[in-house]
């Protein structure tokens, strides 16, 4: 075996084991035949384009494509996380838009506005709603672009731009907006959503069922809007992480439906719900830490109970889903289905 062949085999170790077992000999032969014709006699390293294309294949076979039952499940997980994240973010955005519209129509005072506030508030909400709508319509490329655009205002505090506290609140940056840590933990769910959107919805990926996801979006938006109205007169409830509760409720509903045999258990759903709920935990822990630092007079027992309960419920849901998913995922075969 030549040094070049050894290096090609090393490069192919980035591929999943089952895929490599089936394809390694054939791919090495193709690599070497190409090299023999284009750069004969050279015993160096694989060319960069070969490294990129193999890395792309490794990513696709591990995460996206229907090469193995396990990679099928991972691709499905990525798509579900993206959809759950976009639906949750869009439902929050629609609720915020509804609330803003009602305030604007009913307020007797003249409203002050700035282009920055419009861009980061309603502008961002519209963009995130557009993203989920485009995805449901099958316009994946535009949906990705739109989701990425919606994430940009969340990075504004990192750039040091001076934007009001109320504006930052509307883009999910709550406590201490100037701290990079706060920006990261509050935007983590959206960034994970965007990452999964790019990984899961590649050209060959199946599209979501429009009716099912539109109905979910509409129902979630209305529930969150009602919750939003409820919290207006009770500021203490603003400590609650709405996405955290929403995803914990979705996880509980999922367990109940599976237990009642109304829906079939799916490892992909369990993993997607666990990851989505786990993504909200850093912000919940930050909120908990924030309440702990309040003076005793301010930190009422209700506020502490609320924060403690939401963290406990979300953590339990994540652990239960993760344990269930880990047990069932191991049983998913990793061998690749043969082409013919």
């Amino acid at each position, binding site marked *: 075996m030549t040094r070049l062949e050894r290096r090609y085999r090393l490069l192919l170790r980035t591929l999943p084991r089952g895929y490599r077992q089936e394809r390694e000999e054939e*791919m*090495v*032969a*193709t690599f070497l035949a190409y090299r023999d014709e284009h750069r004969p006699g050279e015993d160096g390293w694989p060319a960069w384009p070969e490294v990129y294309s193999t890395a792309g*294949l490794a990513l696709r*076979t591990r995460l996206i*494509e229907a*090469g193995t039952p396990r990679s099928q499940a991972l691709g499905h997980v990525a798509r579900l996380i993206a959809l759950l994240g976009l639906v949750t973010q869009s439902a929050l955005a629609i609720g915020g838009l509804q609330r803003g519209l009602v305030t604007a129509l009913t307020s007797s005072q003249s409203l002050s506005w700035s282009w920055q506030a419009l861009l980061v508030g309603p502008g961002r909400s519209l963009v995130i709603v557009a993203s989920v709508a485009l995805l449901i319509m099958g316009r994946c490329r535009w949906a990705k672009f739109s989701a990425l655009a919606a994430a940009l205002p969340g990075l504004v505090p990192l750039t040091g731009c001076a934007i009001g506290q109320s504006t930052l609140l509307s883009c999910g940056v709550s406590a201490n907006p100037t701290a990079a840590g706060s920006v990261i933990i509050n935007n983590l769910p959206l960034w994970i959503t965007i990452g999964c959107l790019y990984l899961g919805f590649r050209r060959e990926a199946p599209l979501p069922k429009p009716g099912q996801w539109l109905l979910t979006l509409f129902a979630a938006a209305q529930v969150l809007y009602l919750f939003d109205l409820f919290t207006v007169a009770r500021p203490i409830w603003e400590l609650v992480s709405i996405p955290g509760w929403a995803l914990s409720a979705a996880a509980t509903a999922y367990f109940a439906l599976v237990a009642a045999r109304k829906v079939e258990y799916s490892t992909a759903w369990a993993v997607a719900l666990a990851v989505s709920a786990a993504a909200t935990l850093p912000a919940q822990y930050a909120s908990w830490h924030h309440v702990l630092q309040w003076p005793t007079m301010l930190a009422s027992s209700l506020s502490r109970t609320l924060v403690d309960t939401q963290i406990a419920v979300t953590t339990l849901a994540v652990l239960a889903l993760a344990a269930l998913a880990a047990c069932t995922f191991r049983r998913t075969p990793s061998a690749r289905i043969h082409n*013919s």
Partner: protein
Amino acid sequence: MSSRGLSEQAFLVLTVLVEHPQHGYAVLRMVDELSDGRVQLRVGTLYGVLDRLANDGLVELDREEVHQGRLRRYYRATDKGVRVLGAETHRLAANVNAATAVLGARGVQPKALGGLA
């Protein structure tokens, strides 16, 4: 198959395999020739395209051979692959005809861009 049509790479690979069963390296070379060097597939990309076509039932394994001590796997287009290539060619031809008519109305003949200068 996805309802979004074939990518250019998949279209060319399928075209090569409809003609004759071929092994990986031959497909790389023939795609290069068919596209006049515009599309130069890399090995990783080729196997990604072959996987997608196989998953869609458009290509399948034909046979295996050992050539100079190295494994060669030959792939061929399935009947469905031939039908899909026909439909895709028809769709692209319709687009080309429409574009040619529009350009013709403006007195422009379709030709490859020779550079921006």
